[in-house]
C-alpha cells in the first residue's frame, strides 16, 4: 500500500529554563493510505509532540525541529512557511483533540464553526458551506441538524460536542486525520459510539487516521498497526496482532501485562517499576534500561537499533540481537502468545 505520510529521523527539542528537553529523539514511521495507526505510550513519551509537529502546532517560541523530515504529498512539512502550512492544516490534515469542552469556541454557534474551514479552504459560498455543514452534522449522527446548527457548544453534551469536533475535522475530507486521545474525556458507552463512528466514517471517506491513546483496549478496537513510544522514541512497531500477541520489547511486555485481563484475579499485577526518564538529560543507552528487568550491560551503554522481526514488525531492544541470551517474557505475555499461536494453528 502506498505511504501517505513519512516521518524520517525526527528530532524535536524544547528550550526551557532548565535546559534543552529532547522530547523526540529520532522517530521514523510511515502512514499508509486508509489505515489506522495507533501511537501508544505513557505521558511524556512524545506521542502528542510527534503529531503536533506534523500539524506544525508546536509553540514557535521554545520548540525546535532539530532534524528530520515529515514528507506529505511530495512536500516536507517541517520546512514549510506558516502561510503554506495554513493551506494544509484543516484541509489535508486535520485533528481531533482530547477535550471537546475546550476545543470548540463557546461564543460561536456550532454551525458557523463547522462552516469556517469549508469557506476558508474550499472557497465555497455561505449557502454551499451551510448545506455541507448540515450534511456533516447528519453524517456524524447528530439528530435535528437544522436546529443544532443554530446552537452553542454549551447546549451539547460531551459526546455530541466530540461529534461536532469530528464534523469540523472532516469538513474538507482530509487525507489524514489525527485523533489525540479523542475519547479519553468521555464515558465508556459514549466512547464506544465515537469509536464506531470514526471507523464507519473512515470507510466512507477513505482517510488515514493517526490515533493517539494510552488505553490499550481502544487500540485493540481501532488500530491496524501500532507504534509504541517510550522516552521520545518508537521502541516497537507492528500490526495490532503482532503487538498484542507477539510483543518483543520489554516495555511492551510491561504495558500489556500491567493491564488486568478478565481472568487474572489472584496474581499480582505486573507493574513497571520506577518512573519515565528525564528527557532533560536523556540516558546514554536504552532509555528504558533503568526500569527494565531484562536489561543487559549493553543497554546502559548503547541505544539499540530497530531489529526486524517480520516485514511489518520491528522492535528496538538488544534482546533481539543474535548474541543476546534467551529470556522468558512475563507470564501474562506468554499466555497471550500461546493462546494466539494455538489459535493460528487451529485455523
Amino acid at each position, binding site marked *: 500500500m502506498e505511504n501517505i505520510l513519512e516521518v524520517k529521523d525526527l528530532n524535536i527539542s524544547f528550550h526551557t529554563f532548565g535546559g534543552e528537553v529532547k522530547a523526540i529523539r529520532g522517530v521514523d514511521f510511515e502512514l499508509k493510505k486508509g489505515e489506522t495507526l495507533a501511537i501508544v505510550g505513557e505521558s511524556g513519551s512524545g506521542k502528542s509532540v510527534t503529531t503536533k509537529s506534523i500539524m506544525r502546532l508546536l509553540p514557535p517560541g521554545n520548540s525546535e525541529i532539530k532534524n528530520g523530515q515529515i514528507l506529505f504529498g511530495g512536500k516536507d512539512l517541517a520546512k514549510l512557511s506558516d502561510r503554506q502550512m495554513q493551506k494544509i492544516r484543516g484541509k489535508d490534515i486535520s485533528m481531533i483533540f482530547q477535550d471537546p469542552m475546550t476545543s470548540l469556541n463557546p461564543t460561536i454557534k456550532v454551525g458557523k464553526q463547522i462552516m469556517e474551514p469549508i469557506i476558508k479552504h474550499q472557497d465555497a459560498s455561505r449557502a454551499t458551506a451551510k448545506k455541507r455543514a448540515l450534511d456533516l452534522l447528519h453524517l456524524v449522527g447528530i439528530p435535528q441538524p437544522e436546529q443544532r446548527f443554530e446552537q452553542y457548544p454549551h447546549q451539547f453534551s460531551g459526546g455530541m460536542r466530540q461529534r461536532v469536533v469530528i464534523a469540523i475535522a472532516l469538513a474538507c475530507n482530509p487525507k489524514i486525520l489525527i485523533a489525540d486521545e479523542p475519547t479519553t474525556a468521555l464515558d465508556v*458507552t459514549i466512547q464506544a459510539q465515537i469509536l464506531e463512528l470514526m471507523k464507519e466514517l473512515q470507510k466512507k471517506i477513505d482517510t488515514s487516521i493517526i490515533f493517539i491513546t494510552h488505553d490499550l483496549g481502544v487500540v*485493540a478496537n481501532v488500530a491496524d498497526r501500532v507504534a509504541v513510544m517510550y522516552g521520545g522514541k518508537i521502541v516497537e512497531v507492528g500490526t495490532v496482532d503482532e503487538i498484542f500477541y507477539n510483543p518483543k520489547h520489554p516495555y511492551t511486555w510491561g504495558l*500489556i501485562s500491567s*493491564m488486568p485481563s478478565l481472568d487474572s484475579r489472584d496474581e499480582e499485577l505486573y507493574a513497571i517499576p520506577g518512573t519515565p526518564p528525564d528527557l532533560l538529560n536523556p540516558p546514554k543507552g536504552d532509555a528504558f534500561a533503568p526500569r527494565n528487568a531484562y536489561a543487559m550491560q549493553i543497554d546502559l551503554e548503547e541505544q539499540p537499533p530497530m531489529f526486524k522481526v517480520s516485514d511489518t514488525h520491528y522492535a528496538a531492544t538488544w534482546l533481539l540481537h543474535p548474541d543476546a541470551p534467551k529470556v522468558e517474557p512475563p507470564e501474562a505475555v506468554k499466555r497471550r502468545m500461546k493462546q494466539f499461536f494455538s489459535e493460528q494453528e487451529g485455523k
Partner: protein
Amino acid sequence: MAQREKLLEIKNLKQYFNVGKPSMVKAVDDVSFDIYKGETLGLVGESGCGKSTTGRTIIRLYDATDGEVNFNGVNVHGKKSKSELKAFNRKMQMIFQDPSASLNQRMKVSDIIAEGIDIHGLAKTRQERMEMVYNLLETVGLNREHANRYPHEFSGGQRQRIGIARALAVQPEFIIADEPISALDVSIQAQVVNLLKKLQKEKELTYLFIAHDLSMVKYISDRIGVMYFGKLVELTTSDELYANPLHPYTQSLLSAIPLPDPESERTRKRKVYNLNIHNYAEGEEVKMREVKPGHFVYCSEKELKQYQAVLPK
C-alpha cells in the same frame, strides 16, 4: 463467606440536590447495600450516575437527604457530639481522584501526612510524629527523604501514594477510593493497584472502590455494584457480574468496554440500553431483588422470573 461481618450497612440512602427547586437532582435515589469487613466493593457506572456522590455521602461530606449509613452498627448521619464525630472520622478515610488537586500545594509532605496524626493526637512527641510519617512513607513505597518536599516535586503516581499515606495515617478501618487511578498512566496504575491490594492484606482494610474502568474494578473488587441514574441496578460478586450480567444496563456497559485483545474486539457486538425495554406497568413494584443468593438486580416481579430462568443452574 456467608457469615461475614457487616462493616457498613447502607439503607435507602437518598441524596437530592436543589430540593424544592425545579432543578432538583436525585443524585442518589434509594440505594441500599452492605459492605463486609475486609472486602473490596467496586462501584461502577457512567459519569453522573451518582457513584461519587454515594461515596461522599457515606463519609458525610454531604448530609444525606434520607436514609441510613450504619458503620459498625452506628448511624453515620445521626446526631453526634464533636468527640464522637472525631472518633468516627478516624475510622473512615478517603482517597481522591486527582492527586494534584487533593494535596495542599503549600504544605510539606510530612505535614500533609501528619495532619490527621496531629488532629487525633496520635503522636506524643515531635520525634514520634516524624517516625510515624517515615513509616507511612515507606509503607506506600516512598522514602523518608521525601518528607520535607512539596507536592509539586512529585510525579502523579507518587502524589497518589502520598494521598494513600495520608489516608492511612489515622489507622482507618474503611477507605473510600474515588477513582484513585483514573488520572494515572497505565504502567503507574498497576503500581498503585498493587499497593492498595498489599495494604488491604496487611492492615485488614475494607475498600469502597469507585471507578469507571471495569477491568481494573474487576481485578480489585470482590463484589461490584453497577449504578445508573442514581439507582443501584445490579450487585453481585465480580465473577458473577461478568459471567451472568442480568440487568440490560449492565450488559450494555460491559459490551461497551474495549478489551486489550484485538481478536475479541473484532467480534464485539455492542448492546444499547434503552429504558423502554423494561416496559414496567403502572403500579408495578420495581426494587432490588435477589435473583440467586448474593446476586441482586433492580427489577420487577415479572423480570425476576425471567432472570431466574436464564441463569445457569
